[in-house]
């Protein structure tokens, strides 16, 4: 299946494949854990049944997504050793302790309290259950913090020396943890996780509004998601811009690839909107560009000179086409999210938020946009830092395990088959759960719990009142 590929290419495919699958689940579960904590807190505060019903609905979805995140994550923690053992030996003294802290401070926290959050409300009472829910949400954020510190150190390594066997030796832990790109990357990723979740929740709300625009739970989640979108998307665009400027400072070659700047521009670089990268000729074919705008964005000066890839030795150049495209996909989706947020806000101000089927259709279509944007963003930053694992210091080709291509090919094949099967089925179950009306799920839960049934009478009355109002 993979004849003719080197062990290095195969190991890179394998890492890209497994990490791409993995990131989908945390991107969703980080946001969803926080959303569940908010829903549960609102339920405890207001005792409004709608929040409880929504909590139970999304809790089950969270459990499935979380399980997929756990099992795909455990693979990552061993893959450093199996396929990238030289990197592990060399960089382990710096990034290993950070990852150990992720396990100790975040994974255990999430796992330890997840059971109570999912199954324990009756056993521990509302207050401790709320605490457990909050702790799970906090754990997901803490986990993101550590792993992004690791990734950022690999992008912008500081605070180390190199010893006589070639290992990175930590000298200043503060500098390592809070390395130059870390704050930007962390903010950008956490906001991305929140946006991804808001888009999914919004799409599910929209789907059920399209079927029944008077359902209170659908209205509530759609409204919450659209608020989230209009607040977070502008912040994300700002954070992304700052992250880009940080990248320009520390990894200029990556920005050159993102911008498609093969050539240097001594007096103002154009912003290339679209075009086809042509790596052989080292130019962008059919480029549609706005003169000097790139310099304005990156240097805040129309005539500022910008260096191009012609200043980078060929062997240090990242693959331009992939980075160029993935960056544009991310940006386009970001602005689409902003558009959706603005549209929803205007409909809300006109009092039509729940009566705008085209808005609902658009929100439904945008449901997966967060995942695609997250993947595109990670492809941009990871492919853009090639050919290095530790930027500027350790090459990807020097990081590989002493493994033979057939061994990697066999395991890669196994991962592809198993992942598509297992996570394909899981995604199908998730979609099926999201397709179920909230009411149906809630009725099942109420049937089990008994006494809450009495509250159902007023719910029905309210529902008809809403319908009459219209």
């Amino acid at each position: 299946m993979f004849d003719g590929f080197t062990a290095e290419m195969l190991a890179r495919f394998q890492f890209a494949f497994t990490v791409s699958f993995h990131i989908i689940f945390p991107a969703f579960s980080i946001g969803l854990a926080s959303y569940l904590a908010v829903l549960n807190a609102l339920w405890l505060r207001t005792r409004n049944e709608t929040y409880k019903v929504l909590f139970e609905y999304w809790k089950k979805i969270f459990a499935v997504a979380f399980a997929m995140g756990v099992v795909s994550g455990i693979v990552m923690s061993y893959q450093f050793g199996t396929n990238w053992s030289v990197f592990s030996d060399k960089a382990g003294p710096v990034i290993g302790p950070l990852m150990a802290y992720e396990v100790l401070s975040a994974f255990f926290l999430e796992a330890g309290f997840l059971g109570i959050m999912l199954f324990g409300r009756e056993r521990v009472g509302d207050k401790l259950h709320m605490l457990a829910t909050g702790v799970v949400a906090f754990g997901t954020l803490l986990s993101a913090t550590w792993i992004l510190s690791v990734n950022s150190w690999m992008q912008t390594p500081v605070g180390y020396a190199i010893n006589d066997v070639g290992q990175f030796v930590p000298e200043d832990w503060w500098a390592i943890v809070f390395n130059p790109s870390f704050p930007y990357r962390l903010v950008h990723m956490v906001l991305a996780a929140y946006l991804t979740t808001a888009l999914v929740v919004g799409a599910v709300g929209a789907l059920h509004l399209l079927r029944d625009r008077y359902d209170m739970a659908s209205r509530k989640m759609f409204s919450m998601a659209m608020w989230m979108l209009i607040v977070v998307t502008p912040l994300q665009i700002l954070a992304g811009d700052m992250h880009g400027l940080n990248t320009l400072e520390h990894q200029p070659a990556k920005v050159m690839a993102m911008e498609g700047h093969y050539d240097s521009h001594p007096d103002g670089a154009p912003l290339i909107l679209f075009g086809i990268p042509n790596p052989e000729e080292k130019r962008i074919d059919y480029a549609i560009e706005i003169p000097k705008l790139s310099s304005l964005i990156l240097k805040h000066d129309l005539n500022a000179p910008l260096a191009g890839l012609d200043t980078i030795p060929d062997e240090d150049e990242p693959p331009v086409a992939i980075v160029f495209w993935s960056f544009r996909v991310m940006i386009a989706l970001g602005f689409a999210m902003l558009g959706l947020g603005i549209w929803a806000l205007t409909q809300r101000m006109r009092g039509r938020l729940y009566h705008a089927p085209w808005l609902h259709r658009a929100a439904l279509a945008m449901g997966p946009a967060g995942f695609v944007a997250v993947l595109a963003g990670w492809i941009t930053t990871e492919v853009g830092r090639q050919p290095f694992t530790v930027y500027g210091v350790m090459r990807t080709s020097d990081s590989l395990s002493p493994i033979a291509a057939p061994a990697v090919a066999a395991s890669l094949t196994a991962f592809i088959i198993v992942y598509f099967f297992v996570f394909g089925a899981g995604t199908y179950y998730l979609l099926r759960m999201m397709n179920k009306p909230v009411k149906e799920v809630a009725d099942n839960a109420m049937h089990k719990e008994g006494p809450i049934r009495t509250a159902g009478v007023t719910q029905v009355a309210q529902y008809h009142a809403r319908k009459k109002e219209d």
Partner: protein
Amino acid sequence: MVGLELSFIWAGIIAFSVLVYVILDGFDLGIGILFPLTNDEEERSVMMNSISPVWDGNETWLVLGGGGLFAVFPLAYSIVMPALYMPIILMLLGLVFRGVAFEYRWRTERWKPLWDMGFFGGSLTAALCQGIALGALVQGIEVENRAYAGGWWDWLTPFSILCGVAVTIGYAMLGATWLNLKLEGRIQRHMRSLAWPTAIGTVICMGLVSVWTPFLDAIYFSRWFAWPTAAFSAIVPLLVLAAIAGLFFGLRREQEIGPFLCAQALFVLSFSGIGVSFYPHIVPPSLTIVEAAAPDESLWFALVGTVVLVPMILIYTAYAYWVFRGKVNPEEGYH
């Protein structure tokens, strides 16, 4: 000198987390291994529900074992992982199937038998591979120039297979004694009846491995039969005999907590026996704990948090078990 002590503290911490993993996830995997021995849906669902709230935390100790090794013994990590490439990858894939089964089996009627098979197959594969990996490690790993120097199939030997079988049967015993503790009525009796053959199988395998190990390597032999470690190796078999006696006695008396603790004791004793054989190596026969350790700066930095966080983890893990204490209620669970 300080560095020397630090690396030994860390070796102890890593060994501790692997041991906790075996103690906690051993019975989880054992339940998966026992899964096909019943076709009854009610039995299967209470078996799984007895660990649903805790399995994820249990598995996290494995991540700590791997992640901790990466952090403080990066050289050992970078040698062991390529050396055990195939069993590790298969274990990971097994854990994927085992882990998702906890959620998936409740989400579908049509494919439920398939995810049940996945739960069984995944647990079995993970257990076998863990045993095989252990056996391959005990056997010794060839190292040259800070890297694995052996072949792709070096891990596959009669001894490693025996270890794989031993761990699998042992986990099944842990699973059966756990279910004897957590369940009631007909299904409890069924599980108690399964505890007998798995316990007998475990004892036989333990005996075979113990007799074989000293002859793998002269160092192991001298460690077990030379003074002063011989004193220790004289005590371990006595304790093992006591645990075996307690296990069978408890099963006969239809006790619940006793057999489970004795079964766990067998694992703890085997584990400490392996520790005696290994010391002072981390990857036998040539890589020592001191050689494999990361620089002191790394060891210190990681240690500060570990001494605070691990006790906290133990406390809230114990709390989670306490919350879900007692017999499993067949009506409970969110499914």
